[in-house]
């Protein structure tokens, strides 16, 4: 019997609060990423070594992507979107680490990420266009569209959550099923596929967050 993917395993209890596996993994991942960032940016040089060049390549590609999508200066959006991408990508790749489940394979982590995007979109929209200008955009092209625009805010956040959850969870699930049927070597192609899916889903999550922000700040016309 395979455990339900909708529930998380409780590792230990902190007083009355049960601490589950995804929470521990998320905090561990956050610690590792922070440590790597601090160590990597402590001695920045003009002629970069291999590690600094790799990180610069990553940041510059995110920057270029934002510039292309938003047609604006990427500086205000870069910290949020690059962090989102790096966190989701490394969380998805955790499915390859033995004994660790990716936190994104649980609905709660994805819900948290989608809610962060939901609030960030409104924050950037209000900051760029002002409160009145941003709210007026919901009644465009005509005021009849107002309920539909409001509804789409909720549904797109929901689909952002379910998309990431479904893809990562199904990957982990398939690997688990194959592993229980044949143990040796056979799951490796599935794990390679999971590697690809994880990176693509991180990319798609970030690009969609970018597009939503673009719609909120008015660089991308609301469809």
């Amino acid at each position, binding site marked *: 019997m395979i455990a*339900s*993917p*909708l*529930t998380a395993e409780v590792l230990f209890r902190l007083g009355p609060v049960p601490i589950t596996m995804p929470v521990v993994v998320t905090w561990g991942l956050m610690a590792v990423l922070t440590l790597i960032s601090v160590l990597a940016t402590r001695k920045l040089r003009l002629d970069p070594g291999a590690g600094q060049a790799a990180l610069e390549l990553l940041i510059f590609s995110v920057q270029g992507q934002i510039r292309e999508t938003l047609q604006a200066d990427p500086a205000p959006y870069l910290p949020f979107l690059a962090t989102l991408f790096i966190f989701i990508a490394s969380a998805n790749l955790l499915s390859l680490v033995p004994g660790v489940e990716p936190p994104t394979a649980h609905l709660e982590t994805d819900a948290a990420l989608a809610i962060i995007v939901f609030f960030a979109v409104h924050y950037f929209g209000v900051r760029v266009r002002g409160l009145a200008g941003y709210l007026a955009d919901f009644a465009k092209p005509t005021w009849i569209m107002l309920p539909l625009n409001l509804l789409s805010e909720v549904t797109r956040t929901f*689909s952002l959550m*379910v*998309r990431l*959850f*479904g*893809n990562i969870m*199904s990957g982990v699930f398939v690997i688990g099923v194959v592993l229980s049927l044949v143990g040796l070597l056979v799951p490796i192609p599935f794990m390679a596929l999971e590697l690809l899916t994880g990176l*693509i*889903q991180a*990319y*798609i999550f970030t*690009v*969609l967050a970018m*597009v939503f922000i673009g719609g909120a700040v008015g660089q991308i016309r609301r469809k």
Partner: protein
Amino acid sequence: MNYLPHVSILAAAFAVGMGAIGPALAEGRSVAAAMDAIARQPDAAGVISRTLFVGLAMIETMAIYALVIALLVLFANPFVH
């Protein structure tokens, strides 16, 4: 005899099977269109494939919805005990 588990398994299989048809057709069409566009304009291959990936993810979400419903039926069925 309790028929709920049998019905649930059938419903889950049916949901995934039916839910996969639409997205499969749609993904086939969109990839074909993207191939066509890249063949006509090889210079724009980067932009086209990036848009294609995002579009495929959007289409795939429909199949994922069906999968989530199937999982709900199997693991979190409100009518079982």
